[in-house]
């Protein structure tokens, strides 16, 4: 008996559903007969099942998509080589592999920075990214300026803003010297709220 009624309900429901989907014929859902309590129950039951199933399925989907916004990526100390590579009073180009990287990053995991040795044992390490909109700044030894090719941001050798649109000076990495090597605390792309 229950099989029969199910089959009937399904048939009627389907006829309404399929029509509505195609052709723009404007098929309307069959009115739920209020006197048919079983069908009313079946409709609510079906809606409930779909709702629960939908939420269960949505958890991994939404979690997958917004995952990057929730994850806490940790910077790591990255070796930039012996401190002797960075002569006193000079600013040198240095590259490293980003400690936060994925197998498919390719060259994009490479990162560049500018290392300024203020005096022996005292450094400033600047992110390559202009504080305006992130373009790569270039060092000019002769005028002791960093210049940005995008919108003309200019910085002095100590990273402070000299001219152009940047709202602040260059981003600086935290650094330390261990065993004659210069290490920087690197990972995340620098942003305005932080100093790398």
């Amino acid at each position, binding site marked *: 008996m229950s099989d029969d009624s199910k089959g009937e309900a399904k048939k009627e429901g389907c006829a309404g559903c399929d029509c509505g989907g195609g052709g723009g014929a404007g098929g309307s859902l069959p009115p739920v007969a209020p006197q048919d309590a079983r069908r009313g129950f079946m409709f609510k039951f079906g809606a409930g099942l779909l709702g629960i199933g939908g939420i269960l399925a949505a958890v991994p989907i939404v979690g997958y998509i917004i995952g990057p916004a929730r994850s806490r990526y940790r910077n790591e100390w990255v070796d930039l080589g012996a401190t002797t590579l960075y002569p006193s009073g000079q600013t040198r180009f240095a590259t490293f592999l980003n400690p936060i990287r994925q197998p498919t990053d390719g060259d994009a995991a490479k990162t560049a920075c500018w290392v300024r040795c203020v005096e022996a044992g005292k450094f400033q390490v600047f992110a390559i990214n202009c504080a305006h909109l992130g*373009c*790569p700044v270039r060092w000019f030894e002769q005028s002791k300026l960093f210049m940005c090719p995008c*919108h003309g941001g200019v910085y002095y050798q100590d990273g402070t803003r000299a001219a152009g649109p940047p709202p602040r000076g260059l981003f600086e990495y935290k650094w330390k010297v261990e065993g004659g090597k210069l290490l920087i605390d690197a990972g995340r792309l620098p942003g305005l709220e932080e100093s790398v």
Partner: protein
Amino acid sequence: MNREALIQIVKQPVQWIEDRTGVIAFSTPLLSHHVPRSAKWWYVFGSATLMFFTIQIVTGVCLGTMYAPSASNAWESLRYIDEEIPLGWMLRALHGWSSSAMVVMMAIHMLQVFMHGSFKFPRELNWITGVFLLLTVLALAFTGQVMRWDQDAYWGLGIGAAIVDRVPVFGDQMRALMLGGPIIGGETLNRFFALHVFILPGAAIGLVGVHMTLIMKNGISEMPKPGEIVVPSTYRKGFEERMEKSGVPFFPDAAQRDMVFCGVCLILLVFLAAYYGPFGPGGMPDPTLINTNPRPDYPFMWIFGAVSLLPPASETAIMLISPVVGIAILVAVPFLSNSGERAPSRRPGMMLLAVFVVMAIVALTWEGVTSPWSPVMDGWSALPTPTQFVKGRTPLQMQGAVVFQYAQCRNCHELGGFGGKRGPALDEIATRMSPDQIVRQVQQGGGNMPAFGKNLNSAQMTAIVGFLSTLRPANEADSTIPGAQLPLPIKSPLVLESPFTGTGVPAEISAGVSSR
């Protein structure tokens, strides 16, 4: 076999298909619906946009069979398509040029609809779905630029990330959502790939469907005539009557113009693609190769131009708020005015607005292309000093010319039309500034110029000021003479002048104070 029998053979399967699908009953009104007789060449741009979109889908699917959506291989796979796959370069060229053509056609279509007031009752939603189509197509253009995965793509993402990062409170999270992590890397490309090939095309196809359905429902607007005003309560009835009486079937009467225009566009597209080839890919996407000059594709050049001209203090607010306000205004257009006159001659304010917007976008695009605010990074090392600025100079002055190049002044200042445009051209600086003023400006900077005081020793400073003080036309006096900006009848040969004459005259009196 007689003719009747042949017709039967053809007819039977057609009838079978029609019986099972209703495809003829469905599509007949699409082709034969009446459109205004006045719908002439102004009405071809929407069709052309749709044609370019179709080309995008076809060429995009083809490229999808070869492109490697992985940050470690994408660039190489594009090179492979360009250089190894037969006609692969042509496919990429078609995809790139058709994308630009679609943006242009869409803009013209939108402008035409705006100027003809076609967005008014009952076509408000035609306009709004069109606005969302525009946004979708621009998003496709931006994500498509990312697909090239070259230096422009990498640093373009960096610019996008830096803008998103400025969002208050959630900036960090939004940037991570956009990049798929804390850096621009593998997940970033794949996110944009999913957007570019699944989400955005899907959205565009859906929106095109709605847009077309609305066209069928509301009909194509007539050419506007002064005095024929839109009254929502009576418009539909009148429109239907006019279509009944004087309309022509879309196919073939109106469609033939679309066909001619689309045909011309298509042939032009193929020629452009074949002649100019594909867009990029540019340099390898290696962020340690910093000798790069990142520029966005043309549809975004005006934004690139705009962000360099914003005052730094309000920059973030303008960058974040103006897109929202701009989109809101576009969406609101049909609600602000959905009745009344449609004719351009009766809506002069709206015409001025349209002209202003177009001119602003063209001007900002030009600014973006020329980027006068950007230093010429190799100006100091690559540009020669024009002979007229060194001829007959003393050794000290020529030494100054060397220092001028050496200290990268040329990156921001022009001499003889070559050099950066960030600062003023210095060809005639001696007519505007006295040596004292030059010393002060070079030492202390100011007016968007860095201070060079710490980086030039006194000998270099003396030399550079000696050189700059000679930079003026032969028939104009230097700024140390009061009123020197007026043309004076002094025609002394420039070369014989000492650069330091008249330094005793107070600089202020000389009226040579920099305009900055």
